[in-house]
């Protein structure tokens, strides 16, 4: 399984309710496409978000986002770098 990153931006900033609702919709679709949500980082001003998934390919993650109507800017596969 590859590590897949999803970048999102929000203008105006995303509310907690909207974030919860999107998270719920995405959650319902993940298993359908064989995708696992690893975690997310949201900026403190609630304007940017980076989500990390594991999937066979980036397109599976895009399919999840689109099916769940979760807006995103970019989806890309990533390598992991860790401190030495």
């Amino acid at each position, binding site marked *: 399984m590859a590590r897949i990153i999803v970048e999102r931006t929000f203008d105006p900033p995303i509310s907690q309710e909207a974030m919860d609702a999107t998270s719920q919709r995405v959650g319902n679709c993940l298993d359908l496409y*064989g995708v696992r949500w690893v975690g997310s980082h949201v900026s403190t001003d609630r304007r940017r978000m980076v989500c990390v998934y594991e999937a066979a*390919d980036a*397109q599976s993650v895009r399919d999840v986002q689109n099916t769940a109507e979760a807006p995103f800017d970019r989806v890309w596969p990533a390598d992991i770098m860790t401190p030495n």
Partner: protein
Amino acid sequence: MVDGNGLRIDLLGELRLSMRGRPVALPPSKKTRALLAYLVATGGSHPRERLCDLLWDGPDDPRAALRWSLTKLRPLLDADDTLRLLTDRERVAFVPNGADIDLQRLPVPRVNDIVSTTTDKLEAAAACFSGEFLEGLDLPSCFRFHEWCAAEREKWSSLRVAILTALVDRWSETPEIALGHARSWVNIDPLDERAHATVIRLLATLGRPREATRQYEYCRQVLETELGTKPGVELARAFALLKTSNHRRVHKERPERRLSISVSEAVLVGRERECTALDAIAMDAAGANAGMDFVLLSGDPGIGKTRLLRYFAQAIAGLGGLALEGRAFEAEIRRPYGIWVDMLARVPEHTIPLTLREELRPLIFGADGSPTAKEGDRVRLYSAVVALLRALSAQAPIAILTDDLQWIDEASVSLLHYALRAFDMPGSVVIAATARSGEISDNDPAWHLVRGMAREGRLTEIPLGPLDTLACTALARAMAPGRDVTPVVAVSEGNPLFTLELSRALASGSNALPGTMKALLMEHLSRPEGAARALLPWAAALGRAFDVDLLARCVRLSPSKWDDALEELERRGIIRGIGENRYDFSHDLLRSLAYGLVSQPRRRLIHGQIARSIAAALEAHEGGAEFASELVRHAALGGNDILAARGCALAGDNSLRLFANEEAIDLALRGLHHLSRVKSGPERTSLRIALLRVHVLASSENRLRRWPRLLHDLTEAVATAEAASLSAEAATGYYLLSVLHQDEGETAESVETTLRAAAASRRADAATAVAQLANTARCLVELETNVDRARTMLTEATALLGRRRADSIELYWAEALLKRWEGQLDGAVPLMEEALQLARAQGDRWRECKCLAWLATMNLECGEREASLACCEELRPLAERMGESGELPFVHALEALCRLTLGLPAAEMELESAVAQLQAFDSKAHLAYVLNVAAERAFQSGRFAEALKAARDALVAAEATRRVWEAATSRALLAQIFAAQGDRSAGRHHLDPVLACIDEQDALSARARAMASRAAKDLDVPIPTPNQTLS
């Protein structure tokens, strides 16, 4: 005593909460109350998972159910800013923080402490008990909670008995006080002769021989009917002491004045508005104009729901119609299709169309054999039930009536939901039910059904409130003519059952009317004597309408005593006849109170005896399929693990026949749980295989992945069976192992979740259900797996839509993909065009892009290259505007493929560039498809090296994304390429795995199959026909 902000929690008796001395209303949900009790009694922190297993084994989302319950408990426990309920994502804990809890307040926490405790403290300890631990809080469907609760009850009862016996001893010089404690002792354990003997001795000492004799008679009766024994030495001595005393002789008591009016015959008053509404619905049904609403009569226990439902049944019958009535029982919540089996039993056999009999066999005629249930079978069964109802309703109006919906089983809800969907136009069919308002949320499927109907605006709820004073007076006067009913009206607060029972008491000459319904009903239950009194606990323990034949197997009484006992109970309005040799309690409250009066040890004994009687009946091939689930319940409550496991195997098998797979799995797991406590031996081995068989057959295909240990368990069970020379069991085990191996590695876990999602959607409203079923079906075909399931889901979605035309993009999309999979591109294209039009009309840009891309693909595959190119040209600007969602690299690749097949210049370079873009875009499934088309094209042009590379890359991409059909296409292409190069061995290496599954239904798409056939021809390999093994 600590103040605890005034919060007090009592568990020794009925669960009670009070704040600063004022009672706090508990949540109506029984499971929420059970959770509260469990958290308080056990203390400490519990993983959410364990709490879910304890109480919410069934719902699709147990964690959500737990969250919901916790939100109801928090305001009760965290009063005055004192945090007592501590929760995080994983765990839940209750900390008393000063709350006054009776279990902790008890001055004598253990039996060993009694000797050193003062009498005052013992009295205080006895006063802490107002009944048995969590009295009345029984949840038979949650067996883990039940087992915990039963063990706690035994523990606390033993302590209470020890305290009471010590008190009887300490007060031996003051028999008036000792008698009270001795009577409490008898109530806790009426099978304990010592308790009866103590009461008799004390009564004799107090000069009350008549009461002492009655006590002796009662004890003798109990011992005879329940243990089949005669009084022992201790009782005989007590009785002898009584006879030698010089007190006056016992006179026969004056017979009590008896009432002949039973609840079932009670008049219906004060419900004019509700009756008018029900009359109108019945009239509409008679005129084939009944609305499509689900009619729900809701209210508290005793408020008159059942009586009104009966009124409605009579109204339908009065109009020449047929009322199919089914009653759900709390004890039968695991009996699949329980209410439907009961309802359909009322349909005269000659009215059932011959064409439907085979399909209806599992519900009406009782199926035999062991079919392996498939999804489609269930839909066919449901369709047959609906067809039967349609056929019947063509002759006369039909009412489908369910009493006590809060206890309905999940499979029955599923069928009820299906029927509600089918009858969504005005007609002659009415579907109605009653439900206890507070308890319906405990039953997840029933709760979803009601909420779903409400969301769709199809729920006609008739809430029943208290009767007004006038109606209450009229009812009381009808029951107690010539009496002053003012006190009845004042006390009953408009509850019809309470009014009826109070009036009954008034009519029988009682002067002091009890102030609560419970006290009144308890008094009512205390009146029967002799055999009738002895029969009550057994009837209550049966937990549902009972059959006299079954009861007679358990209780030893002479025929004349039987008649007298039943007659007395019926005359007193406690039970009512409901058919030949069948009776039921007049009200469920009476049943639960009668059961509550039975002590825990005695319950165990009674249930154990009932279980043995049922097992004997089953062995003699008597009793229907419902006996099996009865056996499970009684054996579990009676602590007989082997019989419980046997019942689970039988009931599980029955569930399989009814296509109720979830229930079957539940029974199998339950049975294995019981079996884990049984010693090794042939019966255990045999039952283990039988239960694993139910488990495997009910969990066909992907669901097996939920139980990773199943393979291990089954292998072990087969080895044990072989070692014990149980050849038939071992053979069954080997067959099941083959089923498991066949399933291995076929599909991804995601498919299982997909299917669960689809199952859950069946309980949603129609539009959501259609959308989710179609979405799941579409995904399954796109993910290249489980076509059969996808097809069934589409059939179901179409059936749900009824006569309304679909506006579901996903439905057309999925149907188009299915046609393409079948190789019918001519049929697929118009369906995809329909989906595209809907996406445009609904402004759904992403689906518009997807539909256009599929149209381009399909046109390309059927040789309509110009049309395909036109789609791509339309798609490109749209995809550019959509950003990554537009999947532009795939559009470029499709365009390049079109141009390539049209022989346009520079197409190959364009394709090369598009492939690089797809790789960078990391869209492997699309990449596999494009590379396969490119490989096929290169192969046809004789560019083998190029074809080989493309096909190999396609195979890697297809396997990475588990696209089975695309991978098979790649392998078939590789086989063709190797064949052309004369490398037969490499060709067979790729082709054989494809041919191995070519004869399996739905394993390959038409495209992959055609490609494999060509490769087989090139390699001169015969294509296997079904059942032929590949050499």
